[in-house]
């Protein structure tokens, strides 16, 4: 790596780490979470970046260089459809197969009991042994090829396990190499490592489906609660083993269904087990979490406040970022705030004004990271992304 690139990288890493700790760096870091915007900018179709991960990595590097990003996700198009093809997941619609090559991948959640990947009477089996339940019951339902222990074995089943495992190994190795290239070619920090999901979100997203779990919380609430408690230590370990071993960059939790339930239900089903995962990662492993609050999580700020100081970086999507700053800005760093519709339909001047206001209010004492409200898609204009960079460089120095 050229000496000056190493220097740039070290400066950016320090800037990123300092802001994440809710302290004042030399300047507000630019840390966009950008998905299909990168591929459009680099001239690739959604099919190309979803299926050929080296193109996805390269598209991110193009943007990181051109927009001077301090830190970013090495590939925000997180589903590599090659693995989906090899292991046979049924719940994705993939660009170039079921979708137009220029449309991003889509997740199709089961809408009824018949389609649910976990049935209403299977809570006990999940609670008794979560990993075995996933391997023996859930995977045969979500994969075209995998069969359960009660079925006759098949060649395609054996090969799906083989190719699924090899795919993940190959992808993991490629991500490591891409992180290094992002560092040496762009001086940009790969900003996030392992994933966390709230146990309740796993039930709602991938196991029962939202409609089914919405009935379960009334019909069998004790089992829903016990299932969240049973999943908790596994989801904690899953995040821990995938986290950055040097502990320099955080893991992230992608928050989904917690805002769609009442206070009582949030308190009972969603919050306790998620809180425990985040606290364990922070107190036992020294790992921070990006609290990626998809939607508007302002009504639960009183709970988020219970987390230890500096344990999370609060990413505000549709919430009121100024209210978030008022309520939790003394405890946690905050990111986000630039509306995605402004990046798509606004002017560079309007983008710069919003960025300036964010820096001068949310970021006035440090602990702020510049980003859009939500993951940046192909509708964002390049000139507006450039304006976000220019405003950060112009107004963001301390």
């Amino acid at each position, binding site marked *: 790596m050229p000496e000056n690139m190493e220097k740039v990288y070290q400066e950016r890493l320090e800037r990123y780490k300092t802001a994440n700790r809710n302290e004042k760096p030399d300047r507000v870091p630019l840390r966009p979470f950008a998905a299909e915007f990168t591929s459009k900018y680099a001239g690739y179709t959604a099919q190309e970046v979803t299926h050929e991960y080296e193109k996805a990595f390269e598209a991110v590097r193009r943007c990181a260089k051109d927009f001077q990003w301090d830190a970013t996700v090495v590939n925000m198009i*997180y*589903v*590599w459809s090659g*693995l*989906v093809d090899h*292991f046979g*997941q049924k719940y994705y619609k993939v660009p170039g197969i079921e979708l137009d090559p220029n449309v991003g991948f889509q997740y199709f959640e089961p809408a009824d009991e018949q389609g649910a990947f976990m049935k209403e009477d299977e809570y006990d089996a999940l609670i*008794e*042994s979560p*990993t*075995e339940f*996933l*391997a023996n019951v*859930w*995977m045969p339902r*979500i994969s075209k090829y995998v069969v359960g*222990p009660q079925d006759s074995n098949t060649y395609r089943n054996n090969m799906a396990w083989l190719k*699924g*495992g090899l795919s*993940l*190994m190959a992808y993991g190795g490629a991500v490591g190499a891409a992180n290094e290239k992002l560092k040496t070619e762009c001086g940009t920090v790969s900003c996030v490592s392992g*994933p*966390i*999901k709230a146990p309740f979100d*796993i039930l709602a997203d*991938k196991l029962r489906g939202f409609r089914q779990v919405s009935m379960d919380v009334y019909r069998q609430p004790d089992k829903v609660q016990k299932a969240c408690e049973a999943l908790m*230590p*596994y*989801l*904690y*370990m*899953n995040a821990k*083993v*995938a986290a950055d071993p040097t502990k320099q960059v955080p893991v992230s939790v992608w928050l989904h269904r917690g805002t769609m339930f009442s206070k009582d239900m949030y308190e009972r089903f969603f919050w306790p087990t998620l809180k425990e995962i985040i606290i364990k990662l922070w107190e036992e492993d020294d790992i921070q979490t990006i609290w990626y609050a998809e939607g508007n999580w302002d009504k639960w700020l009183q709970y988020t406040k219970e987390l230890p100081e500096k344990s999370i970086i609060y990413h505000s999507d549709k919430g009121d970022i100024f209210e978030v700053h008022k309520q939790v800005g003394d405890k946690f760093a905050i990111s986000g705030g630039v509306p995605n519709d402004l990046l798509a339909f606004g002017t560079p001047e309007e983008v710069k004004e919003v960025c300036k206001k964010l820096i001068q209010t949310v970021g006035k004492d440090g602990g702020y990271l510049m980003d859009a409200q939500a993951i940046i898609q192909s509708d964002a204009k390049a000139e507006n992304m450039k304006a976000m960079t220019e405003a950060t460089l112009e107004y963001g120095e301390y």
Partner: protein
Amino acid sequence: MEKLKPKPGEIIPWEVHEKEYENILGDKEILKQEWQNLEVIAFRFIWAILTDF
């Protein structure tokens, strides 16, 4: 079917696998360490399909 009930970070507990050896003439800890190293990766595969893919 008997459940193995793997803990977080494992898919086939060492205690189950250990009983499958007829005899161990050398250092059992070497076998255990290698077994558990790959267990974590295999655990991550199962749970990565659930959480990442």
